[in-house]
């Protein structure tokens, strides 16, 4: 232990220190402090870079090409997610006025036990469906955020797309029928 050139403490518990001619200060504590500050600055600089996710929207006024007319996705492989208020999301398969068997609108919650299971299950169903002819025919997800949903809801859904690795999805405007459906289910 280094000693400072002070008068020796005589409280009986410590040993009587011997006087040294040149005082030496122990720098261990200072090194600890310096490394603490280093760690702090190292961590804060890496944390300051904000994360992001990218969003690609389809072109708003895309020209209808006569050679490649916009193909309608068959109803059996679409899953529509309608984002309602109060962190509720309603999903249905196909279209509202002509629902697929077992595809009536149901309310779900966000998260891995909620909507993620729905997406994964539907994705598997589409893969196994006998109507599937080509390999690139996968589930198409249509996201319709309502006016009462929050930005967080939208980011959560886009996150689910990334987690479940669904590459085919589109954000479209909500229709009055969807709003009515949400109101009936008390999610608007």
């Amino acid at each position, binding site marked *: 232990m280094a000693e400072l050139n002070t008068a020796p403490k005589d409280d009986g518990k410590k040993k009587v220190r011997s006087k040294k001619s040149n005082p030496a200060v*122990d720098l261990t504590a200072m090194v600890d402090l310096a490394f603490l500050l280093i760690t702090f600055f190292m961590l804060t600089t890496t944390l300051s870079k904000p994360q992001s996710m990218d969003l690609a*929207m389809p072109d708003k006024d895309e020209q209808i090409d006569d050679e490649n007319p916009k193909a309608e996705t068959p109803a059996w492989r679409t899953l529509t997610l309608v984002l309602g208020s109060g962190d509720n999301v309603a999903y249905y398969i196909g279209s509202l006025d002509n629902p697929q068997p077992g595809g009536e609108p149901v309310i779900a919650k966000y998260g891995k036990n909620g909507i993620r299971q729905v997406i994964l299950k539907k994705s598997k169903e589409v893969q196994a469906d006998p109507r599937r002819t080509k390999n690139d025919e996968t589930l198409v997800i249509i996201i319709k955020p309502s006016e009462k949903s929050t*930005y967080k809801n939208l980011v959560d859904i886009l996150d689910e797309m990334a987690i479940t690795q669904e590459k085919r999805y589109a954000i479209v405007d909500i229709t009055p029928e969807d709003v009515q459906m949400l109101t009936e289910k008390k999610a608007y």
Partner: protein
Amino acid sequence: MAKVKMSKKSTRIDMAAMCDIAFLLLTFFIMTSTAKLPEPVEVTTPASTVQIKLPDVNLATITVANKSAYFGAIGQDVRKLMLEKMSEKYGIEFTEEEKQRFSLIESFGVDIRALKSLIALDSGERMKPGVQTGIPFDSINNQLVDWIQSAREANVQLLIDKNVPKKDQKDMDIAIKGDAKEEYPTIKRVIDILQSKKKNNFFLVTGLRGEDF
């Protein structure tokens, strides 16, 4: 045989050298870290599992909170040129000193007619709550779209000035930094504004979280 003398070696290590190195590292990290600049409005972004880093340069950020929008572009020269283009569009003259002061503002949110008084304020005064109420973006008074276009034009012009080859002239990236509790219609309006100017790819600034939610 000679008596083996047990030499009393001192076990004290001089920590001065380690202390020097520690402070050198500390100075390095202090110099290389960028201080967080105050923003006109505090935004809590939603979290996502996607880890795409925001670009460091060539970026403009639209901050959306409390139904209002704030705009900021990276790069002092970009900001200065952007202001010059806006002053042309709106017929408001800015002195050289005002342009210089403006180029130091990271992010702002005021009507362009109130911009002169904002520039004249101290940087501490600017960030007081209630001073900056947002850039208007309704259909009759859409200043936000003009700011975005000016930023993109300024960016392209600077690239041309630097003799960057045409194939490397990328359009400016746009990031939307929205508050998590913001209602969807405001965000939709901002996205619609971007799409109206053929900007279909943009970044959403998010926090980070695991998949278990």
